Every structure is written in structure tokens, then in C-alpha cells.
């Protein structure tokens, strides 16, 4: 009756002696990919909301994309963010060599550059607020701020995580736990760059074309 009659029951292996060891680092990284997928779903929902609320009606006779976005400021932000990602890449090279100081330097660089991005973004938003362009003004501005700040909030969290990892690398060195966390943080950090590519193209570059 069994479908796999070709396995000979007389000689079949019944128990896995020696225990197949599951690769802990690979399992952890895989789970983190799944988390990123779920986060990408939230980002897509926010993008969908931004596109839906990008209609003129949703600006409620207030400012629309052309008045709000500053692609030049965002460009400098982009440069900083991608340098931060590059710095993290440097930390990963250090990890391959098992070089603690290189990893710490890379993480530190990523921290400073990421903070720089947040500074540029914050200054941009402060200026907008000064001109009365606040999220409460219209559906469009609500969607704009929420999308961009969702990315920003991730960076804040990323900075915190980098700080924690610097402490762990300095204290514990490269234990398996530290290594998988560094790999996951890499995914997280690069993912923010990936999201930003879309934000920059769809919000800032496309928005700049919408002058009326």
C-alpha cells in the first residue's frame, strides 16, 4: 500500500545516528529574510497609499508633490545612506578576515553616515513644517510623511542595533550568535537602501516633475 515500496525495509535506515546538525546561522538568516518579506509588505502598503493619495483631490487644495519634495536635499541624503551601506560592507570584509578592529571601524562608519542621513532628512522636514506643510494638512502630506518616516524610523532602529552590535563585537568577539546577528543586520541595513531607492525615485524624482 505504501507509495515508497522501493525502499527495502530489511536494510532501511531508521534512525539518524550522529544527529544531522542544523546550520544555526543559516536558519537564523533565513528567518530574517522572511521578516524582511513581511516588512516589505508594509512598505508596499505605504507605497500604495502614497500613490492613491497622490491625486490632486487628496492634496485638499494644499501643497502637492512638486511643492513638497526637495530632490537635491534628498540626493545628499542618498549619498550619505549609500556610503553608510558601503561602510557596512567594509565591516563584512573585516568579518571574513576575523578582524575585530575593521568590523568596529566599519560599523562605526555606518553609524555616523546613517546618522548623517537622518540629520539631512530632519532638516528638510523641519523646513517643510516651518512652511505649514505638516502631515495634518492633507491626505497627500499624511501619506508622504508616513512613507518617508517609516524608512527613517527603520534607520533609527538600525543605528540602535549597530550600537548594540559594536558592544557585542567588542565584548564577545565573533561567537556564532554575534556572527548571525551581524549578517542579519547587514540584510536589514541593505534593505533600507533598497527601500530608499524606491522612495527616492517615486517620491522625490517623480515628485519633482509635478510642478504646477
Amino acid at each position, binding site marked *: *500500500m*505504501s*507509495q*515508497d515500496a522501493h*525502499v527495502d*525495509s530489511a536494510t*532501511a*535506515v*531508521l*534512525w*539518524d*545516528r*550522529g*544527529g*544531522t546538525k*542544523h546550520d544555526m546561522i*543559516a*536558519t*537564523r538568516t*533565513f*528567518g530574517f529574510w*522572511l*521578516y524582511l*518579506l*513581511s*516588512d516589505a*509588505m*508594509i512598505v508596499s*502598503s*505605504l507605497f*500604495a*497609499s502614497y500613490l*492613491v*493619495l497622490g491625486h490632486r*483631490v*487628496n*492634496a*485638499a487644495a*494644499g501643497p502637492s508633490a512638486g511643492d513638497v519634495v526637495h530632490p537635491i536635499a534628498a540626493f545628499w541624503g542618498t549619498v550619505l545612506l549609500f556610503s553608510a551601506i558601503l561602510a557596512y560592507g567594509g565591516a563584512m570584509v573585516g568579518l571574513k578576515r576575523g578582524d575585530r578592529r575593521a568590523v568596529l571601524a566599519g560599523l562605526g562608519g555606518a553609524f555616523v553616515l546613517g546618522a548623517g542621513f537622518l540629520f539631512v532628512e530632519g532638516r528638510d522636514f523641519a523646513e517643510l513644517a516651518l512652511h505649514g506643510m*505638516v*502631515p*495634518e*494638512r*492633507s*491626505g*497627500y502630506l*499624511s*501619506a508622504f*510623511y*508616513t512613507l518617508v518616516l517609516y524608512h527613517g524610523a527603520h534607520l533609527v532602529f538600525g543605528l*540602535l542595533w549597530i550600537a*548594540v552590535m559594536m558592544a*557585542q563585537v567588542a565584548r*564577545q568577539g565573533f*561567537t556564532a*550568535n554575534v556572527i548571525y*546577528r551581524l549578517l542579519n543586520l547587514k540584510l536589514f541595513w541593505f534593505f533600507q537602501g533598497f527601500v530608499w531607492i524606491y522612495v527616492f525615485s517615486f517620491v522625490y524624482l517623480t515628485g519633482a516633475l509635478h510642478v504646477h
Partner: protein
Amino acid sequence: MLVDYPGPWTFLLGRLDAREIPLQNPILLWTFVLVSVGAVAVIGAVTYYGSWGYLWREWLTSLDHKRIGVMYCLLGVAMMFRGFIDGVMMRTQQLMAVGPKSPGYMGALHGYLPPYHFGQIYSAHGTIMILFAITPILVGIMNIIVPLQIGARDMAYPYLNAMSFWLTAAATGLVMISLFVGDFSHAGWVGLSPLTELAYSPGVGVDYWSWAVQIGGVGTTLASINIIATIIKMRAPGMSWTRMPIFCWTALSASVVGLSSFPVLTAAVALLSLDRYAGTHFFTPGLGGNLMLYTDLFWIWGHPEVYYVVLPAFGILSEIIPTFSEKPLFGYVTMAAASIAIGGVSWSVWLHHFFTMGAGPGVNAFFSIASMLVGIPTGVKVFNWAFTLYRGRVRFDVPMLWALGALVLLLTGGLTGMMLAMPAINYTVHNSVFVVAHFHNMLNVVGFACFGAINYWFPKVFGFRLDERTGKLAFWFFSAGTVVLFGSMYALGFMGMPRRMDYIPFTSWRPLLMGEEAGILLFLVASYYFVKQLFVSIRDRAKNRVTASDAWGTSRSLEWLTHSPVPFYNFAVQPHINSRDEWAWRREHGLGHVRPDRYEDIHLPDNTPLPVMLGACAFALGFGLVWRMYWLAASGLVGIVVLVIARSFQDGPGHTVPGARIRQMEASYAAAPGEVGAARDPVGGVAAWQTASAPRPRAGDGRPARP
């Protein structure tokens, strides 16, 4: 940035003051008294028996997937009871408030529930049943069964597993406390927009709903991640994809659906919260909001969610039906493919929930056809089950009864779904109780499958079978209730009765409303027998003790290879998989009793209180936000961050159980009658249960004696 809302606010208590505790409402007062007495009784009993330490060490801080699964199921069953009471209240109100002459009591014009209270009850009922009853029960069952079926020692991430559970528990706590402190949303389980906006619902009800949904949503997303990773990464050697039990396939498909859809719900409800707290205009009627955006986002989650719950139910049927037909499952490959296909198609049908909203014929036609496509893989499954039954030696044990009942319900529910999926029909019955009957019909499929699963796997987890007589009575009363209640409801739907009515203008509907009431009374009897079944079974556990690893004698998949009740380490040595139905294969080749000759050390993670504390922080965060006690919310949030960081600094070495001890435990399982008990450490290890010394022949030696 924060918006203005009516009413006072203090720093310490936010919007909360003593008047928010609804002592003036007799129903809530009595519920409150009842719940308090119950709580005191439970706390008293635990204290009296000195079980706090046991409860804390063995359950609340446990990372064991079986215990977490059992806690999930208990939470879900308890909440199902709560949702059921809501249902009884709604039925009774609708029966009492028929026609202009119907009297009113307790401040209601008609019936006994004023509209605002009635609205809260139906909103709570839907939210609870879908998110806090059925979902936890299914997640619990997947938690227990998936690792066993794939021969794993635990889930891929035991710590995350506990965290998911405690987040769900925190969210459930928010829903429950809204009964006694403040009120709950009155805007339906779907959160009808823009009724949920602050301008139209200025109270805290919608906030309770929204934070509970968000916290619970995070918990379920994390649970989905865990189940996917477990299935992909932790399968025992030899278990290729085509040897994986169908329940695991459906768990995988459901978890992919859950992982990809729950974040959308979180996003939709979070945007609503931004509207309510930060004054944004996502879904407001004015200033550039768009309420259809909410409706779309909600149903982009909402429809996949119904498949998130129905897919594991399909998996359960696929395990129960072969066991009690004494045949392998018919059409394994198509079954697996259909599970994945249903998960895929479920993503492209959400608009059928609002055909009437004016999307235009092209869009409606697309979503209509997509919705009907779901019928194809579902049909494949139904035929596969039917062919499994065909010429099988069918036994009508309690799990099988529930499974067969689910099959019948699936047929009617699927057919009415097809009807609803045709826009021309939909325009006439949309927002009528016909829709309510359709989805209760479908969700009852899930309910039947859950009851079937509880009866089927109970002996695996606890080591004794559930009582047969009371189980059958529960099944028949439940089935009768389903037919009477939802039959009447379908009819009322055809007569045009809108859903969510607290007052019924037409006295001619009274007979059918009485039919509905009769149906729910039958449910009441069924619940009595279900509780009695649990009670009788625990009392007479010695009689129903399972003496073999395979409680039913004809089970097929891997979980029946290890002992009942399952020891904490699941499998003493990881099994090597040789066949699709590994246990059936070993049994049929006379290998059922072959035990490993050598045992190795087993490494397990230590228990930890952090997940409980995380849940408590999440509760504080939610409660603080609901009442706008910002200091409490902030402390909850900071608490969560601190706990996560703290966890990452303790590298949790875990502990090792030496092979010698494993050998000892294994020997005790196979020992002669009467000698067992002391060394046992089963998942359901309530001390009292272990003292019963029933005869216990060699484990795994085939079928138990059956009449």
C-alpha cells in the same frame, strides 16, 4: 502633533477615570462579578495546590513547542467561549426586538441591548472569533504537530515562538479588559471606515480594537515566520518535499499567506491609528482622505486571512480521513499542489467583498472570475477526500465525524461562495445575512476541523483519548445547531434581511429568527457536552489511557512514531524517513516497535521569563495608547526594546540531557505494566495525571484493542 478629542485628560491616567468602569450596566456588572469570582477561584485553587511554581516553571516560561501550542489552544478555546456568549446575546436581542410592539428592557427601546451596546457585541464577536479564537487554535495545532510530523526537536526559533504566543495573549487581554474598562469598537470586525475615525467614534472603543489587532497581528506574523522556517529548515533526513505530510503542506501554504497578508492589516490599522492620534487624513471624508483605501487594504488582508484559517483545516481533514478510512490519502501530489494554489489565488480575489462599491464592470468581472477559480483546487481536494473514503474501511470515531461534517459544510459554504462571487447575485444579497450565513458556514468548516483535530491529537499530547460518548453527543448537537441556525439565516438572507440589525421591523421574520435561536440553543447544548467531554475524559483518564504510540491503530504520519504522551525531547533519536507515510510504512513492514539501540545527548534551550515580560510590556503599550497614558505606553515600548537587547546579551547556553537519562526514560516507556509513571515527563505532565497507573504494554507495538 497630537489631536484634540472631547473629554478630560490627566497626565497620570490619560482619558481614564472611574466613570469608565461601567458599573451602571447590569449585564456588564454581572459579567464582571462572574469573571472576578472565576478568577479568584482559579487563583485560589492554584495557590491552594501550591502550583504557582509549577505553572511558572513548566508552562509560562516554557519554550517547548508542545506546551506553547497547548497554551495557544487553551487561549483560543476560552476566547471561542467568550465569542459564543456574544453570539447568544445577539441572537436573543434579534428575537426579542421584532416589530414595533416588542418591549424594551434595561434602557433599550426594543429588546434588551441598546444599539451602541449591540454594535460593540457584534464587533467583538467577529474580531474575537477570527483573530483570537480560531487563529490561536490553529496556530496552536500547527505548533504542536508540525515539528512532530517532520521529526524535529522543536520549532526553528523556540524563543520567538514563546514571544508570538505572549503577544497574542497580550492582545487578547486588551480585548477582554475592554469589557470592564471603557468600551469596545462598535464599527464591526472589519472596522467600517470612516465610522472608525475620531470624529465619529470619539471613545476608546476603536482604539481597543485597533491596538489589539496590531499587537495580535505582529504575533501571528512572527508565528508564520517560525512555521515556514521550521518546515523548510528542520525536516528530518530523508523527508523530501514529496514525503512531507499534507498537514505540513497546508501549514506551509497558510503561513506564507499569513506572513504576506498580516503586515497589510497591521499597516491599514496603523494608518487608522495615525488618523486618530496624529490627526493625519488617510481615511477621513474630508481634507484628502480616501476611505476606499482602507477598505481595499483591509480586504487585501481579509480575504487571504480566511484562507489562512481554512488551509490548516484542510490539512487536518487530510490527516483524519485516511486514518479512519484505513487507506493512504488519495492524490497526494494534487493535494499538495492544490494547497499551494489556493494560497496563491487567495491573493487576487479581495474585491469580491465590495463589488457594490462601484469599481466598474471590468474590475468586477476580473475579481469575479478570480474568485471562482478558487473553486478548482478546492474541488480537487474534495474529490481527493471522497476517493480516499471510497472503498476504505471507514470507522466513525469522533475525529472522523467532525471531519465528515466539515466536508458537508465545505460543499454548501463553497457553493454559496460561488453565488456571492457573481456580481449579479452579489448586488442583491450583499450586506444581507446571506453573506453572514456563507462565511459562518465556511468558518464552521474550520471549527469542525479544529474539534476534529482536538479529538484526534489529544491522545498524542496527553496520553489518553477523549471520551467517545460525550464527544459524539457534542458533535451531533453542534451539527444540528449548524443546520438549524444557518439554514434559517440563509433563508432570511434571501428574504433581504440586512446584517447587523439590533431591531427587526418585520414580524413575518419571527419564525425564522426563532429557528436561529433554536440553533444557538443547540450550540449551547453542544458546548455543554464538549466541556463535559473534557471533564469526563480527565476524570476517567485511566480508562482511556493510550497504550501505544499510535492512538488509533491506523494512523500514518510520523507524529505517531514517538510515544504518547510525547516526551519533552519529541524523538529520542532523530528518525530517518523512508516513506511518505513513515509510520504506516514502518508498521506495515513490521518495524513499528524497532527502537534505537543507542542514545545520544540532547541539547535543549533553557526556559526564560523574557517572553512573558515582553507580552506584559506589549499589553502596557497597548493599554497606555488606548487611554492615551503616554507615560505608560512609552514605558511599555522602552521595556520591549530593553528586553530584546537584554536577551541578545545572554547567549543562552541551554542545557544538555545526557544520553543515559534518555535511555532511562525510553526504557520506562517500554516497561512492564504498573512500573511506569515515575520517570515520565510528558507535555501534559500535570502531577495528578501521572499517578494513575494504567496497564501500559510495549510502546509502539501496533493497534490498541478495539471493539
